[in-house]
């Protein structure tokens, strides 16, 4: 459920590079604040505090008809009807001012027309949470979930912590967003634990779905148009609607700070629009505090895995429709394993911000609040912190680790050398202990072998184990309808590219689930390797390389500038413990590689698809002649074409580089690094190279890519033969 189309777009108007600079300036001060306010949870997280809420004493019918006495969110909360909320928005000073003083007089539109329009907007937007619908929906969901999931595990310690922090201040739930199921799950969990059901910001796409829009509305969703550009009335209505929900404090508000579902299973860079709007009542002193609760929802297997794969490669996403939904019901025949939900430590915005509010800066409430640079710095910080908290509280499935091992094997080993179950188990075990040392909680309830087999079983449509214990990737692409090249969002990839690409991208989806753990260590170990290759190995030299890679990948991963040094030091320590870096050296200013070269290789290899994609994006942009510009779409298309050529000629063998998300991030990253210049012409965004800077960046990226390029190269055809077993006939 993508939430905030336009607010995020508006907020993104501020240059990200500039934002990061600001964040860096405020860093030490904020670190101080954080140390005092956001203590890390006491002990390490354990699986035993997670309880399966589908596994309950009462039958579903009794459960959904239980007495509903949720814990109140704020002291002064009073339940309002939909009409009353609408009335409150309409009669708010800000709305009155916007219509009477601004829009009407500026645009010479009659006020009555504006009031009517506002009313229509609010009807289109408004939620209509009704308990009977919620109960029945809950009943149906219970049945579906029992069928497709082997359990919905909720960290009950985190629920207790959440309960303790609810009661005095408005609450915002910010779950991670990997699937449509997130939205339903959250309300389901709240219902189970008698927590006031959240009101959820949802994308408009659902409204058109017959019945579904209504159902979601009744369960507490309100709908925001995906883009509303300069529509001041819509903007005012939307922000007032969100703010009245905050100030009245009757329900928690829920929205996805990532803005939309992450197709890649990696966290998306946080969007600031909706967050800023939601925090405004605090900044303007209308509420004393807001409690922000980041939530992690981890899926063993994502419902939309195949769809995402196609989408990332550029095959268009079908429009949400009810018939489409029914078609999608065949997902119900499959098994999707476990879900883990963890409500992370609630954040007091007041403490996080160190109370910046000042009556001196206060304007009458009918005027829009102007966010100060200080406030904006903190909002960016908070947004990044929220995402990082989501990541830290993930439960990693064994399959994700297996995906890392399998991908590594496929990319590096000769074609006749297949991976067997024994090797896989051994390698997953060692990766597991590495991941745990990076703070991960791995979902391994039994002994590793059994758990791993269970995990592989869930994904049997992607990974098969033959009788003789050979582990292979299955061709999922063949089962899909042929793709009309005209509908391709990017370059129209050849059929055989898709054949290998789709399963590889699907596999990468699960590799990505682990990347927040490995990204900093991977960057550090690659930096160390290159520094040593260049004859240095000095810490400062490594740090400079690390800094470059981090900046380069900051649109890909959550690498907030302010955490740069902290992450660096932490990664070095962890890598030393794991033997990837040598610990024994006496010179603390010099780094060198340790004995664990296998792990080092795996870590570096993780960066391959990204570096390859970024490198191609660099080349594409370099080829834009001086004085010419390209649109983002053109840039993506030609980069994909370039990458496909590389894949076909065996100069590259990781299909994830083709991902449009990855390539978009690459262009954005080059833009914030100053290698590419973004121009706006007639409302269109166009890009042109900044030759000198781009040449520099291209060179450095290329050097890094050289280091991680696999030892053993295979052409796409070879790879196809290696990967695909069952579907051979169709190839």
């Amino acid at each position, binding site marked *: 459920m993508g939430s905030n189309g336009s607010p995020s777009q508006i907020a993104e108007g501020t240059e990200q590079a500039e934002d990061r600079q600001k964040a860096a300036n405020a860093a030490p001060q904020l670190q101080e604040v954080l140390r005092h306010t956001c203590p890390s949870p006491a002990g390490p997280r354990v699986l035993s505090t997670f309880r399966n809420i589908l596994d309950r004493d009462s039958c579903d019918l009794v459960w959904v008809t239980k007495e509903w006495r949720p814990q109140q969110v704020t*002291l002064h909360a009073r339940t309002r009807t939909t009409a009353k909320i609408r009335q409150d928005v309409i009669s708010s000073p800000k709305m009155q001012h916007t219509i009477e003083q601004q829009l009407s007089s500026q645009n010479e539109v009659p006020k009555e027309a504006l009031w009517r329009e506002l009313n229509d907007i609010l009807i289109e937007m408004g939620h209509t949470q009704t308990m009977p619908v919620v109960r029945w929906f809950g009943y149906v969901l219970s049945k579906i979930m029992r069928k497709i999931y082997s359990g919905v595990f909720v960290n009950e310690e985190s629920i207790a912590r959440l309960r303790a922090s609810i009661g*005095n201040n408005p609450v915002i739930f910010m779950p991670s967003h990997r699937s449509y199921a997130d939205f339903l799950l959250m309300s389901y969990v709240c219902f189970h634990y008698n927590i006031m059901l959240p009101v959820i910001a949802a994308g408009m796409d659902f409204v058109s779905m017959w019945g579904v829009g209504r159902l979601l509305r009744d369960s507490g969703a309100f709908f925001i148009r995906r883009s509303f550009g300069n529509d001041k009335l819509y903007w005012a209505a939307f922000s007032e609607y969100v703010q009245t929900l905050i*100030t009245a404090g009757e329900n928690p508000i829920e929205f996805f700070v990532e803005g939309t579902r992450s197709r890649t299973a990696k966290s998306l860079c946080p969007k600031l629009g909706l967050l800023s709007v939601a925090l405004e009542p605090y900044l303007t002193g209308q509420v*004393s505090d807001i409690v922000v609760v980041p939530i992690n929802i981890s899926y063993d297997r994502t419902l939309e895995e195949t769809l995402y794969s196609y989408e990332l490669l550029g095959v268009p996403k079908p429009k949400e429709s009810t018939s489409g939904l029914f078609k999608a019901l065949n997902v119900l025949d499959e098994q999707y394993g476990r879900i883990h939900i963890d409500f992370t430590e609630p954040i007091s915005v007041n403490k996080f911000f160190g109370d910046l509010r000042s009556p001196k800066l206060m304007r009458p*409430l009918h005027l829009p609040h102007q966010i100060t640079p200080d406030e904006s710095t903190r909002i960016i910080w908070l947004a990044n912190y929220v995402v990082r908290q989501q990541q830290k509280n993930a439960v990693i499935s064994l399959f994700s680790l297996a995906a890392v091992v399998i991908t590594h094997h496929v990319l590096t080993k000769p074609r006749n050398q297949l991976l067997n179950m024994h090797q896989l188990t051994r390698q997953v075990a060692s990766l597991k202990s590495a991941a745990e040392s990076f703070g991960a909680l791995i979902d391994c309830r039994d002994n590793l072998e059994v758990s791993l087999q269970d995990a592989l079983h869930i994904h049997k449509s992607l990974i098969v184990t033959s009788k003789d214990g050979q582990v292979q990737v299955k061709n999922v692409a063949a089962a899909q309808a042929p793709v009309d090249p005209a509908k391709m969002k990017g370059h129209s990839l050849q059929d055989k590219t898709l054949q290998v690409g789709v399963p590889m991208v699907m596999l990468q989806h699960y590799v990505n689930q682990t990347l927040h753990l490995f990204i900093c260590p991977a960057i550090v170990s690659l930096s160390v390797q290159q520094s040593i290759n260049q004859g240095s190995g000095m810490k400062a030299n490594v740090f400079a390389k690390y800094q470059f890679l981090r900046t380069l990948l900051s649109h890909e991963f959550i690498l907030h500038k302010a955490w740069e040094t902290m992450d660096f030091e932490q990664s070095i320590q962890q890598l030393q413990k794991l033997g990837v870096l040598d610990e024994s050296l006496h010179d603390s200013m010099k780094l060198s590689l340790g004995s664990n070269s296998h792990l080092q290789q795996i870590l570096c290899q993780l960066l391959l698809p990204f570096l390859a994609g970024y490198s191609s994006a660099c080349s594409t942009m370099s080829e834009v002649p001086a004085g010419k510009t390209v649109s983002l779409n053109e840039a993506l298309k030609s980069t994909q074409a370039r990458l496909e050529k590389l894949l076909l000629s065996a100069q590259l063998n990781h299909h994830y580089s083709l991902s449009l998300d990855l390539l978009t991030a690459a262009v954005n990253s080059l833009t914030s690094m100053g290698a590419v210049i973004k121009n706006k012409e007639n409302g269109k965004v166009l890009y042109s190279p900044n030759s000198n800077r781009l040449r520099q960046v291209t060179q450095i990226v290329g050097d890094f890519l050289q280091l991680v390029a696999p030892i053993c190269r295979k052409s796409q055809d070879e790879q196809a033969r290696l990967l695909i077993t069952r579907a051979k006939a169709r190839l």
Partner: protein
Amino acid sequence: MDSELHGLNAGSDRECERLDYFDDVENNRKSSGSIPLKRQELLKWHGWGYKDTKVIVTQRGKLFITSNRYPLVKISQVSQKVREWIQQVWGIDLYEVENIPEPPENPEISNFPGPFLDSEFLDGLLTLQIVYSTDGEDRFFRSHGQAMSDIMNARQYQITRLPDLVVWPNSHEDVVKIVDLSNKCNIVIIPFGGGTNVTSAVTCNPNETRMIVSLDTSQMNQILWLDKRNLTVCVQSGITGQDLEEQLFREGFTTGHDPDSLEFSSVGGWVSTRASGMKKNRYGNIEDLVVHIRFVTAVGVLEKESRGPRISCGIDFNQIILGSEGTLGVITEVCLKVRHLPQLQVYASFVFPDFETGVKFTHDVAMKNIQPASLRLMDNMQFRMGLIMKEEQTFIGEIVDKLKLIALSAIANINEDEMSFAVAVFEGFKDEVAINKVKIEKLVVKYGGVSAGAKNGERGYLLTSTIGYMRDICLNLGMLSDSFETSVPWDRVLQLCQNVKSVVAEESKEKGLKHLSVCCRVTQVYDTGACVYFYFAFNAAGVVDALRVYEQIESRARDEAIACGGNISHHHGVGQKRRKWVPRQISPTAVGLYSAIKKTLDPNNVFAVQNIVLPAEITSSKL
């Protein structure tokens, strides 16, 4: 030290030397004020108000008031419903509290540290023939105000520094001489009026090495003249509101200034703290009432040479006297506006469905500019607290009450657990009052409110004068409770109330408090905003360092009030309790300006009571 008063005979029948009054209030104008030289003969040492007036809780929730001073029911009965509610919020069963430990009638003399005396100053006083005392009790009584923390400290004899001497001047001239003498002898003077401050505004600096003199103005309690043609009265600054109003009443006049502390607070205190009276809508706050002030500073007397109703002559220096809180000099005489007594005074009360509608109503009253003389709005919790003191119900009465409630919820859709309660006073000529009342009542209906009668209105106002006594019984019961106030523009009134309550609740939760109540009322309705009063109480049983916990929570609450558009205080002032907010509130430039004034008017720091700004900020100021 001996407890005799020194120089008692000296000033007894001295004449007022001023001759420029038009109209003697009495032929023998020397009336005795109601506050005696020895305050302890009349007033409690361990709490608010008169010694003879206490609220006593007896078996099964009966409350007694031990004197006839207040026209309230003498015996009241806590109803079963109120009992259960109080049990829930405070964790106290009012039916089961008996033999509540109470502080002894008189303080333990042995607990007072001896005075530090400057012989040169004592000689000077004797020469001047001004009454003074070095008695421990006298000094102790003037070592604190009425803030809850002051009272708690007094009860536990935690006040480490007492004034070394109390002096009772009789006139402006006495004060001039005392200030001169102090300036010469390097003595500290702390002016003391009614002793009702709630900001620790008379607390002595424990590190003060000089002798500290408490200058008690209670014997400067005369009306010097009443000018009926020009509607002014000139009084000595020590006169209490009660004495002043009583004497004016006999002449058919009133100042209309009516703070809750009227019985004990003095005119000088009003001026030096920028006080506000509940009927300010009709009569104005103290700064509107003041026509002329005589102000004795260490470098001379500050006063205007004009009796005109207004003057444009550069900066109005009355404004540095108003709110000076004893740090710049002593106010000795004040000339105030008076009005004829109103032809009619009518109370009224209303209930509203909830606090929000009540606030909207008061806001609309301001928008339409139809404020009655006074208008107050209590939130639900405060309204219910008021029900603790309610007359015992007969069986029939109880049924009638129940019926009223049912009717309320049925007809007006108002329920007891949500409603807010407003009280009003109308004053003026009959027709004026009638018109005002009709306008108000119409507006009440517009906001879904219902009239609740004049009796309840009057009771509402009477209860405020007993709040001090209630605070004390709370202390006896182990509840720490106090009030704080702020003023805030209209568009933020409701949010400020909600935010402050949220913050108090959140902080209390963090501090592990189990039983607490926080309630508020809108007490002043300005055109541009309102004054909001909060009452916060918690059960201190088992709470370590409860007083500190209280102050931390109150401090957070005040931070929040300021952060969401309110300010440091509407009328209590700064004292030593709220200094930390001052620079932010008035700008560092203003602090510098204050420091410069302080250095100019009081070069030797005679008035060393450390109110308003922290001493360090004065020293560091560059102005």
